[in-house]
């Protein structure tokens, strides 16, 4: 679920950001550097930064929510002590981390579409939706596959975010397979169980990856 939700968010937001970055504007190189920072930062250290932001006592998010009146007297968000809030926190970090990578890849895909193709679609009377779904999307399919596959790989196989942020808690409700495998296999000493947990979803992912890579190759050839 973490992988699915964060990937949908990453691809959607990455598309919006990539389209915005396609335009020329003052300070574009600085914006690019700033947007790229989450991807370049070591994930374990970046997660510590988020841990401080989501701290139960000193959370700056809670301070802002208090100031704007969202949280009334006696109300408080324990970001890492509540199942739903904990999941939101983990997904937020994955989206924050993967968004720059997807954006620059999608940006490369968008800029590779020749202007003549858009002009031909305009002449044929295609509207914005028809252009998006019948011209841009099919031509972006191979690069979209690269973005999604690497996003899935980095999100699915990562355990550091969960390990440092919630340790799988509260009540093991925010564990991902990688962190559960580490807990059972390495910390718990049950190597067989840990290995079984780790490879549980691999067959599904393998089939999905093969289908996506084949489809993207076909689109590339066509």
């Amino acid at each position: 679920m973490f992988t699915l939700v964060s990937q949908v968010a990453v691809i959607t937001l990455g598309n919006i950001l990539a389209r915005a970055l396609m335009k020329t504007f003052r300070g574009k190189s600085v914006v690019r550097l700033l947007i790229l920072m989450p991807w370049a930062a070591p994930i374990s250290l970046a997660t510590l930064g988020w841990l401080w932001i989501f701290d139960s006592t000193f959370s700056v998010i809670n301070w802002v929510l208090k100031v704007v009146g969202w949280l009334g007297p006696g109300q408080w968000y324990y970001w890492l002590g509540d199942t739903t809030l904990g999941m939101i926190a983990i997904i937020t970090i994955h989206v924050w981390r993967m968004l720059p990578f997807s954006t620059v890849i999608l940006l490369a895909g968008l800029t590779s579409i020749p202007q003549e193709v858009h002009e031909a679609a305009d002449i044929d009377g295609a509207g914005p939706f028809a252009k998006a779904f019948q011209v841009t999307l099919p031509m972006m399919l191979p690069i979209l596959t690269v973005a999604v596959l690497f996003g899935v790989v980095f999100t699915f196989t990562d355990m550091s975010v969960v390990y440092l942020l919630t340790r799988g808690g509260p009540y093991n409700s925010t564990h991902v397979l990688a962190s559960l495998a580490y807990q059972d296999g390495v910390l718990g000493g049950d190597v067989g169980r840990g290995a079984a947990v780790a490879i549980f979803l691999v067959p599904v992912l393998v089939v999905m990856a093969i289908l996506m890579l084949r489809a993207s190759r076909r689109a590339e050839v066509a």
Partner: protein
Amino acid sequence: MPRSSVRRVATALGHRLIILGFTAFAVFPFYWMVVTTFKQNSDLYVGAANTAHNPFIFNRPPTLEHLQTLFEQTLYLTWLVNTLLVGALVVAITLLLAVPAGYSLARLTGRWGERLSIGIFLTYLIPSTLLVHSRSRAWSRSSGFRTPCGPWSSSTRPSPCPSAPGSSWASSSRCPRRSRSRPWSTAAAGRLRSGAMVLPLAVPGILTVVIFALTLVVQEFVYSLTFISSVQRMTVSVGVPVALIRGDVYYWGSLMAACVITSLPLAILYNFFLDRFIAGFTVGAVQ
């Protein structure tokens, strides 16, 4: 004001807002780290319930005590050196494996080439925790951990596993097709092609490999956490949380200082080589 002008202004405003929103989302954690690094403890540890205290600004004069703690009371510089050493070794081993592998894959046309490329990529779908399981017992039986270089070698050995497949993939897509398909027949011509033609043309792919492998090493967490117990031999990503989180006590100022100091040079390095990196990653898909 004519309708077209209003529309133009609204579009420009919307564009600025989108850029501003995404930039704020990306940068805020780093801003928060910088502010935390230089804040006095009395300015830092004020509960968020106190709305009269603005946490975004310095309510007291900035201090360097957290940086002092980081550099004088932890082995931060040693961890940085360890990380760079492991990174350099991994990059070297990865290049040694990935460049010939990528070149061979690029020349292997037909179904088998495609199948092997997909097969190499699929190794990424196996969580690294599984690789840890298989090695942890074997290496714990060996004396590797007790030698001075043992922990370094233990974190170097698995690292090419995650970096090499992706690197082969990236470098195979960067081997120029035209030079691959020319009918060279003699050994001398083959050597000439490899040295003089293919390597210079594959530079973006090789650069991608270097940056990709270095990033994976710096980001790597689970191998270092599992295999290295000596604090002196740790890499940055594990040393910082292990040394600066003591039980329930978090040294937030020093932790955030370590995060900022480690992240900024990497971000600048990435930005410098970004175009080549993206070209190396996506050329197969966009060409």
